């Protein structure tokens, strides 16, 4: 394609965007909202996932063997727990090792305890599926030689719940908003197509190819979409900075940094905006470009 032809087509697309400023603004706005919500849902999702990793590191489930267990008994316990379907890993930590670790954290304070270690041998259990948490914990409690099980049921339940809510409700809202944006963009471009129907008719009658007629509208759609994508990206960045600022900073759990997701988000927003824009223009130009077939 010759360069001046390309420039002409791009200029046409830009011109029609300027002409329908109000409708263009409306479609950009809706698409921005849609992308904004999508972006926020994505960030929540990423943080929940991050939270999962953190939760695993917190050793959500720890089983203790009865006081005075022999190493054979401990091995039996480890085998029994390790054989469960929902258990991905069992790590044995002897009471001596445990005390060692605590001493490192709390210093001389615990030195006295070395003579008569009050701790119990522990098994750090990692689960595969947190939604089967209760059943698995019950099963571990029932293992011969297990004294007690420590766990943070609330935390795991909350994580599972957040993840499900974000996934399910988020997906529906995003889908709905995408459809709404698509509808509005298609109508914006339909308006352009309508105001330019004379030009389109002339183009067809002098033998312009379908893609040539379509191209300016594609440009218009792509411009609408990528403008919305860029705006939404800026907004998500701003919103996330504010959230990070007010989110309680604890040593244990921190929000993921924007730097970890900036690229995925940027590409996602630009591509998402572009796809919606192009799809919208394809829908709205279709009817005017349809040739008789038989």
């Amino acid at each position, binding site marked *: 394609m*010759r360069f*001046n*032809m390309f420039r*002409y087509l791009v200029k046409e697309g830009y011109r029609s965007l300027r002409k329908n400023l109000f409708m263009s603004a409306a479609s950009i706005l809706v698409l921005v909202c849609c992308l904004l919500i999508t972006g926020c849902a994505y960030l929540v999702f990423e943080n929940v996932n991050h939270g999962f990793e953190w939760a695993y590191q917190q050793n959500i489930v720890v089983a203790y063997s009865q006081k005075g267990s022999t190493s054979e008994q401990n091995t039996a316990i480890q085998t029994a727990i390790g054989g469960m379907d929902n258990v991905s890993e069992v790590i044995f930590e002897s009471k001596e090792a445990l005390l060692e670790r605590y001493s490192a954290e709390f210093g001389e304070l615990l030195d006295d305890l070395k003579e008569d270690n009050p701790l119990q041998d522990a098994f750090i259990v990692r689960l595969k599926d947190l939604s089967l948490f209760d059943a698995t914990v019950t099963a571990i409690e029932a293992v011969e030689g297990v004294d007690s099980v420590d766990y943070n049921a609330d935390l795991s339940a909350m994580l599972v719940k957040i993840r499900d809510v974000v996934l399910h409700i988020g997906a529906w809202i995003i889908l709905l908003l995408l459809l709404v944006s698509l509808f509005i963009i298609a109508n914006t471009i339909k308006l352009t197509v309508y105001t330019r129907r*004379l*030009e389109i*008719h*002339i*183009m*067809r*009658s*002098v*033998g*312009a*190819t*379908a893609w*040539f*007629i379509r191209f300016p509208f594609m440009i218009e759609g792509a411009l609408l979409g990528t403008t919305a994508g860029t705006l939404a990206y800026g907004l998500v960045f701003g919103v996330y900075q504010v959230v990070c600022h007010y989110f309680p900073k604890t040593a244990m759990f921190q929000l993921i940094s924007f730097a970890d997701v900036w690229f995925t988000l940027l590409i996602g927003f630009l591509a998402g905006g572009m796809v919606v824009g192009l799809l919208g223009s394809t829908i709205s130009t279709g009817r005017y470009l349809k*040739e*008789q*077939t*038989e």
Partner: protein
Amino acid sequence: MIEFRGVHKRYDTGIEALKGVDIKIDAGEFVFIVGASGAGKSTFLKLITREEVANSGEVIVSNFKLSKLKKRQIPYLRRSMGIVFQDFRLIDTMTVYDNVAFAMRVVGASQKDIRKRIPYVLGLVGLQNKSKAYPMELSGGEQQRVGLARALVNNPSMIVADEPTGNIDPDMSYEIMELLTEINRRGTTVIIVTHERDLVKAFQRRVIEIRDGLVVSDTKDEEVASYEI
């Protein structure tokens, strides 16, 4: 150049606009299509330009068998013809020059070719001094000459015009017809649908009369009075 073989056209409404048309128009001919309102004249032209498709029979235009023409080939068929409209179809926001240049731009002509070609074509239709004017500043006859220039600009082998003088007063109509005659003299096939008996009489060309979807006469007869126009 153009051939209809047993062509039937029925619209979705059930109306049969053409009921078996056989006709041949050679390259370089000048033809008037006449007939009463609703006879099927516009349908005949739309089958040539492939705005409509025949239900049966075959239409052949510039070596394209239209029943076998693929969608993506339609633009190339249309580049072989210049279409002139009764209502001119000029773009009000563009100058005369740009209206004509538009037809070249959208088929991918280079700026250089456009700059060379437009003055020539505007000269051909006698509008060399009006290139900066807008359609609204022109008379009906002048507007139709712009339409003609636009139809000619891509150098088609035929001109197809559905009542090109329908919206123009008689003196101007005569001028447009003379222009079309001149274009035909240079080798372009010209096909014109018209209701104007006086023009048909004055120009003494081949006349094809369509009545109720059939060709009922095809002659150079000078006795035009018998035509149902």
